[in-house]
């Protein structure tokens, strides 16, 4: 008699437990299915350029001429690849020292000002939408460069400057976390030996936190690499490798943004754009694995 009573109490519990398990599992399953279908669809579209349309992989990766609409269409994506790499790496070169200095200020020089003032500044920079960065780049940086340097003002320099501001929060936040998590004894030991603050930062803090700093920088590059609209607005969108930093050029993302709407689904012109998207996606994988590798090193 008592036993059956127990079962009556236990059953709703088990049903409830089951609901929770199934519900959360469906959510995570949705996430996993989404990403795998994403990889599958983009890859199948991107590869069809080579399989269906017979474009040579090597021609696409190393070709210098992008002329999808001419009689003998040419799909050389090297200018776009070059544009993407040069703008994002240059952006990281600008942003990394700035981010490191801001992090040093927030952790070592003035934690109070850092928390009350710089922290919100960085968060606001992170919160500004990319189109607004693009708009400001277009209406401030481009005219400024046009006046100061020969050329139209658009190009890699303008693009990477805009991107530098966009990735600064990422780099700063990770650098700050790295500096803050450093064992206090390390710094105190250096100070006890009579080292100045700068010597401590330069000789002790920077080398020990380097893997973490690199993680931030790579994350920043990854973000810059995938940013589309802000770059598209200031890069100029000419499909060739520029001779200077102030000459109009294109990136993978800007080429996709501009042309995807104007080409018919399934045409070779359209498929070639999907190949650019595939390159973008593969680069994301590369960045994720570099970050994982760096994080693994940090633990040692």
């Amino acid at each position, binding site marked *: 008699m008592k036993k059956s009573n127990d079962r009556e109490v236990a059953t709703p519990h088990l049903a409830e437990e089951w609901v*929770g398990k199934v519900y959360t599992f469906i959510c995570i399953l949705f996430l996993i299915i989404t990403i795998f279908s994403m990889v599958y669809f983009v890859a199948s579209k991107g590869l069809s350029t080579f399989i269906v349309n017979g474009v040579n992989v090597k021609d696409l990766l190393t070709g210098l001429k992008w002329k999808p609409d001419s009689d003998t269409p040419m799909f050389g994506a090297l200018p776009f690849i070059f544009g993407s790499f040069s703008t994002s790496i240059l952006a990281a070169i600008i942003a990394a020292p*700035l981010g490191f200095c801001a992090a040093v*200020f927030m952790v070592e020089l003035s934690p109070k000002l850092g928390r009350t003032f710089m922290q919100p500044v960085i968060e*606001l920079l992170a919160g500004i*939408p990319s189109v*607004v960065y693009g708009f400001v780049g277009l209406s401030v940086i481009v005219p400024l460069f046009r006046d100061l340097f020969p050329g139209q003002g658009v190009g890699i320099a303008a693009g990477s400057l805009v991107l530098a501001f966009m990735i600064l929060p990422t780099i700063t936040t990770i650098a700050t976390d790295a500096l803050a998590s450093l064992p206090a004894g390390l710094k105190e030991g250096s100070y006890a030996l009579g080292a100045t603050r700068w010597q401590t*930062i330069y000789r002790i803090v920077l080398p020990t936190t380097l893997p973490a700093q690199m993680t931030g920088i790579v994350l920043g590059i990854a973000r810059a690499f995938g940013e589309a609209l802000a770059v598209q607005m200031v890069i100029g969108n000419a499909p060739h490798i520029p001779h200077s930093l102030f000459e109009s050029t294109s990136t993978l993302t800007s080429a996709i943004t501009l042309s995807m709407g104007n080409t018919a689904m399934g045409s070779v012109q359209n498929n070639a754009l999907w190949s650019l998207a595939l390159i973008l996606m593969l680069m994301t994988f590369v960045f994720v694995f570099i970050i994982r590798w760096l994080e693994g090193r940090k633990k040692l």
Partner: protein
Amino acid sequence: MSAKTADKIATGIIIAITALIALALIGLLGYILYRGLGHISWHFLTSPPEAIRKGGGIGPQLFNSLFLLVLTMIITVPLGIGAGIYMSEYAKAGKITSAIRLVVEVLSSFPSIIVGLFGLLVIVNKFNLGFSLLSGALALTIFNLPLMVRITEQGLRSVPVQQKEASLALGISKWKTIRSVQLPIALPVVLSGSILAAGRIFGEAAALLFTAGMSSPRLDFSDWNPLHSASPLNPMRPAETLAVHIWKVNSEGLAPDATQIAAGASAVLIITVLLFNLGARALGRYMHNKFTASK
């Protein structure tokens, strides 16, 4: 140069660079507000845009952005919280879980334009939803899910383990414990994180170009039946958002006052995102004070 001089110079440079970053932000915000605020008026906020003539507004775009935000949050929050609970409570440590973690990490680092393209291919074309608010909301959901999962995990991790154990010791089922004990305690973190995610959704444009579309059909703001094609609430209509509008006006705008419109719309966008940021901070602080004994 002695070590002390070097120290002084380095300190000076670090302070100067930090000040430069702060000044850049102030200049950025100041510039947008200075350029944009003058153009904001009731007329600008409510009237439809003009293609060629002067004096177009951003009324439909503003409405679309807000409506899209609501739609996206309705889909994202239950999915994201569910997946977050799975990751933090149900997933057993092992190869499969770390593989799932890798998948979530990869998804979170996908560029938004890739998410938009996937939306174009699968949601717009394969599922035949067309350029519509619903397509846009689904694309933004994909874009934001990893963030939402991470926020939920963070929130659940902030729950003291004793609370959970006490509840389980009372014989309450795991799911009931999560729902009635752990989630309420995690709520401040989850809520302020969600508001920040909302700010991100509000400013997102690249994922929407090819999903929610770049056109905005005439809306009839007196017709609130979601099934009518001119109704603002119809989720199946194409909808250009504010962020997309800024991009479009800048890159192919024909109206003579395109720059002013872009500036005004940017100011509106910035002010909204600022409100989201401040709101998230204030709410987080308020709930933290309310739920904990700290002052």
